[in-house]
Every structure is written in C-alpha cells, then in structure tokens.
C-alpha cells in the first residue's frame, strides 16, 4: 500500500507486528529510548513526509510513559511533514473514570496499595497511599530523606489538615471501591472543612492533549464510555469486538442457545442484551447498589421485602462507613452455562463477585468474555482463585503474562489485529468502516 506507514509504541509491539503482517507491509522503524535522566527520546527512522501515518499504542502497563511516548511520536511525525497522523489506541488510556466524581473514596479503582501475600476471594484493597512506595507514611517529609519524598503531597496535606486519615476498613467493600487518602471524608465525601471532595475527570484533557500533539484521527475499540467520542474535535472510529465475541460463543460454546448471557453490572446491560438478542440466548443481569444507610432496620430485611422475582443474595453492611451494598441477580441461571460479558476488567472485583454469585445460584459453568483484560495489581490472582471457569479476552493489551498465570486451558485470547488492520486499510483507502461494526473480520 502506498504512502501508508504503521509505527508502534513500546506498549504492545506484538500487536503492531500482527497488524503490519495483516496489512502485508513492513513496520515503520522508530527508535524509542530513554535519556539518562529518564526523559523519553523518540526518533522516527523511516521518512514520513507526505505519508499517512498510523501509530499503535495501547493504554496499558506504564500508562503515563506510554501516553507521553505516543504524544511525542505524533508530534515528531507531524513536524516531519506527515500528511495525516492517526493514533490507534486499542485500549483507550484514562477511559475508565470513577462514575461518581463526588464520591472519590467510594468509587473508582483502588489506588496502588501494598502487596498482599495471599489472595482470597474476599481480599479487598488496603488503604491506598498517594504514589507510595512502601516507606512509612506518616514520616515528616521534611526530616526524612528522599525515600519519603515520593510519598507525595497528600501526606503534607494531611499534616496540615486537621485530622489524620482514618484507615479505611474495606474488608467487605464491594467492587471498584477504594479510599484515597487525600483527606479524610465522611460518607457523603465531605471533608472536615465542609468541602465535598471530588476527583477530576480526565477525559477531555486526554482528548485535547492528543489533538494538541497533532493527531488527526483516532481508532479505538470498545470505549468504556461511548460519550468519550464527544470529547474530541477530530474523527474517532470506535471499533467493536462484539462480532468477535459472538463468533466465539457460536463456535466454541456447546449448545450456545441454552446459555445465559449475563451482564455483571447494570452499566453493561445494553452490551450484553444486544449480544443475547442476536444469538437468541436468554439474559440475566446483576445489579449492585451502594448507598448510605438511612433505615433503622438492617439492610437484609429492608431489601428482602422487595419483589419475589429478585433474588437477594448479598447484602453487606459496613459499620465503619455506614454503607450498604446489595447485589441482586435478575434472571434465572440454575443449571445453566453462564457467559459474563464486560468491556473492561481492571481490578476484577465486579467480575469475580458476579461469578461467585452465579455459582451460588446454581450456574453450571461460567465463562467471562472481556474485551480489555487489564488485570492491574493482584487482579489476575483474584481471577485465578475465582469461580470463573474460563476467561476469553482480546489482545488489546499484552496477555502473555496472564496466560502463563491462568494457563492456556482456561484463558483464551482472541486476535483483534485483523479488525484493526482492516480498519486502517479502509480508512487509508477512504472506504466505509461501518461494515466492521456488524460483521467483524
């Protein structure tokens, strides 16, 4: 193909190679190094003058390093007179944001925390610290050396602030919950000065940074948040892995018509129903609710008074935070093969809990079909110990490590390089991309 160049960032070289193989072109050469002081150094070796450049970089691993590397590469191609630069981000960085910005300590992924030695299903993130490296947290950053200098400002903020953060006993806290030690806040996330702490959403910023660096177009896959597309002023092609997943269900799950497609949370219901409808399978939904305890009577009684079609399974009351979490399964899964469908699994709390719930309800076998399996922190071990019988994911982020932990029998990786390559080919030739949405490749 003329005037087409595919460059690869350091996040996922294998995927770049596969894409190039599918396009039957040679990968453009880029030298990406670090200077001795740690700054990223990029040099594009092949000429890109008047070329249509595609840069493949996934939002995984060292997210910030990879993202800045991508920005520098885009900018380097731009000032080297490339006609058009398209960023190909199979997993979009920073696409998963805490859903309720006003409850920073109750939603969002857990912060980096200390490593645990054993993993149990019930293991929950310990109290996280801002960028902590395991040194003692409450040291005066002035007196101690550089080790504690990493600890970050929040610590200072807490020094200044009026009370020390209370270690958050999150023993039975439900998925996606974490506390940030920014300032100690109460249930309604108000700190002692009465200001409601919030966590900034980065979506628009990331979009603007990419545009500023010079990206003319974007290709991504299964955006966690479809509204994300609206943050950009440049065209964004959001590809779907759905056809790929559907093929898998059809071809590899025996008697797939009898299985139940399950969405692990209400946010993914649409995704799961569309697959269930097109395959003619039945559908179930796991609903999770978290709210501050107001009623005097224990949550279990309060919730069990709900309608009989709803199986109340799990209700946890947390005395420390006065929070109530209820997990409900809507639909029948008894003696069925269940297929959990989710777009992104990061901490794996949602999916492992969902699997346990399904097994408790008599499910025979649980598949987990996930587009982006990030498995950060100790998530992979949690999956290993969980009730999920088989994980099927795509290679939007490198999976070889996950495969080696879980074992190839229970972990299958679908190749998305063909979809991406076909999208690149079509965009380069000015053909329609929408056909890929339905039929896959």
């Amino acid at each position, binding site marked *: 193909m003329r005037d087409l160049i595919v460059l690869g960032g350091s996040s996922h070289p294998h995927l770049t190679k596969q894409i190039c193989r599918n396009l039957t072109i040679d990968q453009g050469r880029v030298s990406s190094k670090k200077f001795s002081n740690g700054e990223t150094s990029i040099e594009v070796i092949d000429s890109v003058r008047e070329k249509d450049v595609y840069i493949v970089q996934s939002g995984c691993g060292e997210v910030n390093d990879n993202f800045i590397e991508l920005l520098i590469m885009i900018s380097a191609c731009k000032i080297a007179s490339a006609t058009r630069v398209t960023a190909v981000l199979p997993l979009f960085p920073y696409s998963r944001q805490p859903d309720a910005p006003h409850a920073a300590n109750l939603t969002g992924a857990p912060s980096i925390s200390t490593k645990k030695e054993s993993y149990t299903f019930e293991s929950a993130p310990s109290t996280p610290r801002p960028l902590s490296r395991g040194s003692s947290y409450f040291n005066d950053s002035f007196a101690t050396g550089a080790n504690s200098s990493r600890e970050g400002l929040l610590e200072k903020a807490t020094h200044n602030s009026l009370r020390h953060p209370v270690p958050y006993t999150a023993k039975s806290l439900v998925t996606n919950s974490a506390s940030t030690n920014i300032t100690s806040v109460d249930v309604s996330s108000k700190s002692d000065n009465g200001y409601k702490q919030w966590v900034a959403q980065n979506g628009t*910023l990331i979009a603007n940074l990419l545009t500023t660096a010079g990206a003319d177009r974007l290709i991504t896959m299964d955006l966690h948040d479809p509204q994300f597309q609206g943050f950009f002023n440049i065209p964004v092609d959001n590809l779907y892995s759905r056809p790929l997943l559907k093929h898998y269900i059809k071809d590899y799950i025996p008697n797939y018509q009898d299985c139940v497609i399950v969405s692990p949370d209400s946010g993914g219901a649409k995704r799961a129903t569309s697959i269930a409808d097109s395959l003619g399978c039945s559908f179930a939904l796991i609903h999770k609710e978290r709210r501050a305890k107001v009623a005097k009577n224990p949550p279990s009684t309060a919730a069990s008074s709900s309608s009989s079609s709803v199986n109340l399974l799990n209700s946890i009351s947390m005395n420390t935070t006065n929070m109530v979490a209820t997990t409900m399964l809507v639909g029948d899964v008894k003696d069925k093969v269940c297929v959990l469908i989710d777009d992104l699994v990061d901490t794996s709390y949602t999916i492992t809990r969902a699997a346990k719930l399904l097994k408790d309800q008599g499910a025979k076998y649980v598949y987990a079909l996930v587009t982006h399996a990030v498995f950060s922190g100790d998530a992979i071990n949690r999956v290993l110990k969980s009730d999920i019988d088989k994980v099927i994911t795509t290679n939007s982020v490198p999976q070889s490590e996950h495969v080696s932990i879980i074992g190839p029998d229970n972990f299958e990786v679908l190749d998305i390089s063909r979809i991406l390559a076909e999208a690149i080919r079509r965009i380069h030739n000015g053909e329609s991309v929408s056909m890929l949405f339905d039929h896959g490749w």
Partner: protein
Amino acid sequence: MTKSPNNIKLIAGNSHPQLCQAIAKKLGIQLARVGAFQYTNKETAVAVGESVRDEDVYIIQTCCSEDKINDYLMELLITINACKIASARRITAVIPNFFYARQDKKDKSRAPITAKLIANLLQTAGCHHVITLDLHASQIQGFFRAPVDNLYAEPSTLRFITEHYDRKELIIVSPDAGGAKRVASIADKLDVNFALIHKERQKANEISRMVLVGDVTDKVCVLVDDMADTCGTLCKAAEILLENGASKVIAMITHGIFSSNAIEKLNNSKLDKVICTNSLPLQDKVAACSRLEIIDISPTLAEAIRRLHNGESVSYLFNNVPE
C-alpha cells in the same frame, strides 16, 4: 470592573514535596488539599479537597527522578486541568526544572521538539502562566503563548561563592562555548576574569575532546553550567583546568540531575565542591557525595509567586536574593 482580591492556592506535586513545603513556609500559607494519586492500573487521578474557585493557583512540579518523569508530567497536566474545571481564576505552573528542556530543537531528521510539545500540552491543559528557573535555552519561552518568568539561580549561587571564596583568586569558567555569555556576565558582576572550555561532542552525553581558552594558573576556577546530568563534562573540565595549573576547581550548577552513576563520578573526580540548587530533590545524593553543597532556591520561587500574585515586578529577582 476590578476583580475582587483572591488568595494564593499552593498545590504541591509529588515530585519535590520538600521544596513545596519550603515555599509554603516562606509564603506563610498552607498547601492546598489538592493532590494526585495513582490507581492500580497506573493511571493518575487528582482529588480536589478544597475550593479553588476564583483563586490564584500555583502548582509546583519539577522534572526529576529517572523512572517517573512522565508520571509527574501527566500529574501536572491533570492537576492543571482539575483546577481549570474547578474554576480557578489563574493557574500558574511552577516548574523549576522544566520538562524535556534539552529537546528544544530538531537536531536530527524526524526528531521531535519535545519542549515545544510540552509547552503546548501545558497550555492545552489550562495553564495561564509559567514560572521556571534557568531554562536550558531561554528560547523555550518563545514556545509558549502564555507569559513565562524565567528566574535565575545565579544571585543565590553567587552570594554563596562570594561569601566562601576570595574574589581575587576566582576565575569563572564555562564548560562549553554555549555558556560563554552567561559566564561573561557573571565575571563582569564579580569583576573577575573568565575562561572557556571548548568541547567537541559526537554523541549526546559523550564528549571527545576539550580545549581550554584562557589562563587559569593558580586560580580557583568556578565552572558554571545550568545543569549537570551525567557529569562527564564537569569531571573532564575539572581535569583539564587542573592540568593547566588551576589551584582548585568548584562547580556552580542550577539543576543537579545527577543521573545514572554521576555521583560516583563526582566522588572520583578532582572537583573540590559542587554547588547546586534544590530545584530537584537531592537529599539522598548529598548523603552519597560530601562535595555536594545545596543552596535553597525556595526564597526566590516564593518571592516570585508573591510578586506575581500581587502584580509586582519580578525583575528585581534577576539580580537579587530575597531575604
């Protein structure tokens, strides 16, 4: 309509908490409860714990640490953006050691001008003003559409030198031809002579040959440079100066990056002293190298913030050290 008076909100980045503390102390204020943390998937997020609406926000972040530069950069961008979303009146990035300052030109085909990219990214994030210290190339100011205050560490370091050394013995030496101008102006101020070392560089961070221009016999040579990274230049320059009859060699540096085995090199070198500002965190390096002398730059930065907030002139700081 004049706007109602507002307050300084000082936000500390995670890169250099000591400096942030020192600046806050000098200004007599507390650090704002705004801060960045990382999720397990290594994405950075910023929690805002107090109102910055209509306030004058200063975010301090410096380019340091070999493995976390890009993390700190993203943290800065996200913090700026968070303050923008939170309706801050003005956002100033205080970046003593500017990010990617040395990648300021297209020195090879298809090499990026990363410093320009960083300037654009900062402005995209919502930065209205930048305070920095001894930019590697002052032309980087031109990469911004926003105003940039490029402060000098020179008054602080010079004061140290005049307090500790006899002016009659001094000679100011530039380790490369590019620094000749800076050295000449310092020499003029002190009313001493200056010399120059010309180096031929074939690859980045590697020097091949050095030639001394000027007479340094029986003098205390002060090597002046804006940053010391691998310290190859400094150590070699010191050797050449001593070979040419210098009695003692000291180095005067603004940004002590000291990457990889720089400290080891300094310990084995013939340099008598390395005087360096705390624009980067250096505590562990001071412990490892007794020749390192740290000068606190926080008064200059704090005074610049105070003057900027009050709309006073900053140029006083170019020649004087605030008390």
